[in-house]
């Protein structure tokens, strides 16, 4: 569905991402893992057209996304849940959802909002409240619901568990699994390596803008490199 070839992203003189290759197939969860500044968010921003790509290509369902404006990429069926949620805090919950559905038919908007309310009943209770007054967990739900409003073919999630209480982190990963089971395709960026590897179909590890390892979730869980560097497990042999 999404295929990225030799992707390079440059900010001035600095290479943020160098020659990255990966694929996301229909119905998969694929996870990008890496430390702060490794280039994960840059990669997601490049897919959405928010930052220009320096070289390489990004293809979605056979269409080259290079140079396409963000609003057109959204209409192709990709939706990003940004890091830090970035809901419109000065607008009501319902207006946030309305904006999420700005690309779909007017007749569909109300039924989609209804669907989101039955999925997240707490949002219905808070529908007229300003989104900025929601708790962190509720804001996360709103961010997910807002993205789903556009009926995306593919969801990009940038560190959805960042800043959530441990209990909410668990329900957040449950939600991601549920979304996949419903047939969504998900590209997940996470720093919670342990949890991510458990749910992901495949994962790619990025260090300093380059891919250093890839494999299925369980393969990577077993690999010494990942266990030492990302899971903090040292085997005494």
């Amino acid at each position, binding site marked *: 569905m999404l295929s990225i070839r030799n992707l390079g992203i440059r900010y001035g003189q600095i290479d943020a991402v160098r020659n990255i290759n990966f694929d996301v197939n229909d119905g998969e969860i694929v996870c990008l893992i890496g430390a702060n500044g490794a280039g994960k968010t840059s990669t997601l921003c490049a897919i*959405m057209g*928010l930052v220009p790509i320096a070289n390489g290509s990004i293809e979605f369902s056979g269409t080259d996304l290079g140079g396409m*404006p*963000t*609003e057109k990429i*959204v*209409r192709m069926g990709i*939706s*990003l849940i*940004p890091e830090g949620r*970035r809901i*419109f*805090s*000065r*607008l009501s919950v319902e*207006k946030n959802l*309305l*904006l*999420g559905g*700005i*690309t779909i038919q007017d007749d569909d908007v109300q039924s989609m909002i209804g669907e989101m309310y039955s999925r997240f009943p707490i949002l219905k209770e808070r529908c007229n409240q300003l989104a900025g007054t929601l708790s962190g967990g509720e804001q996360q739900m709103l961010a997910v619901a*807002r993205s789903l409003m*556009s009926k995306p073919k593919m969801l990009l999630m940038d560190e959805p568990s960042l800043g959530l209480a441990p209990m909410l982190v668990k329900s957040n990963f449950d939600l991601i699994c549920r979304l996949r089971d419903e047939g969504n395709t998900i590209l997940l960026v996470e720093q919670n390596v342990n949890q991510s590897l458990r749910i992901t179909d495949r994962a790619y590890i990025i260090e300093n803008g380059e891919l250093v390892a890839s494999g299925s979730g369980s393969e990577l869980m077993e690999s010494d490199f990942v266990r030492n560097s990302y899971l903090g497990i040292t085997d005494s042999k």
Partner: protein
Amino acid sequence: MEIAIQYITNALSVGGTYALLALGLAIVFGILGFINFAHGEIMTICGYVLFYAMAIGLPFWFAIIIGVIMAGVAAVIMERIAFRPLRGANPMSLLIAGFALSGALQISFLVFLGERPKPVPMPEYFTGAIKIGGIYIGVVQVISIAVTIVAVFALNLFLKRTKFGISLLAAAEDFSIARLMGIRANAIFSGTFAISGLLAGIAGVLWLAQRGSVSYTMGFTPLIKAFIATIIGGMGSLTGAVLGGFLLGALEIVFQIILPSEQLIFRDPIVLFFLIAVLLFRPGGLIQEKKESMR
């Protein structure tokens, strides 16, 4: 009592004109992050359109409608030609583009339309006074206040109730996230300038109604006043712009009254002194809005 009410209506009508202009500046600043220094020239364009429309014999009200619409169109064209090519540039570049545009327009007015102010005669029923509860009040003042209230109310309704208005509010809060929703950036740019231009057009008509003629420098003073009002109100805040406009108008009328006539030339410096005092206590203006950086 009668005098007091006349002064209050004066303050409200002057403040209302400033408020409409300041709203136009603030909506562009709030959404696109820069001050359009060619905003005053949109007013001037409205004035010239009004003059020529009446010169060819169009009825007064029809001329006003054309003038205001042309102000909106001029603002959209302005954005398309001068600001859109600079999208994503440093706000300083946009500021300078605005100054350049303002200068170029003023010189063009001077060269092509002449140096002499052109009279825009108001109909008689406009210049008279009406009696409300035994007190005479200028019709122009009453109309100015009413128009300001209607315009602010309509803008509020548009921003809160229509899909496009809500998109503009979203873009004001977080432009790149608004684009991630699929809101077209170009539509935001054009829409913002259209609203800003229409407000400048309405303010232009009110300004002319009190002064009676249009010249190539007409936009300069009101632009400065509106700029002051947006700073006092809080950059980018629409409510703040309206408050700032009315505060500025009220202070001007107050000092107009209490200063002896030989010291009236000190009115503006004294008003500015007061507004600087406001900023000492509230450096961000009366209403401060948190804003995500624009990408």
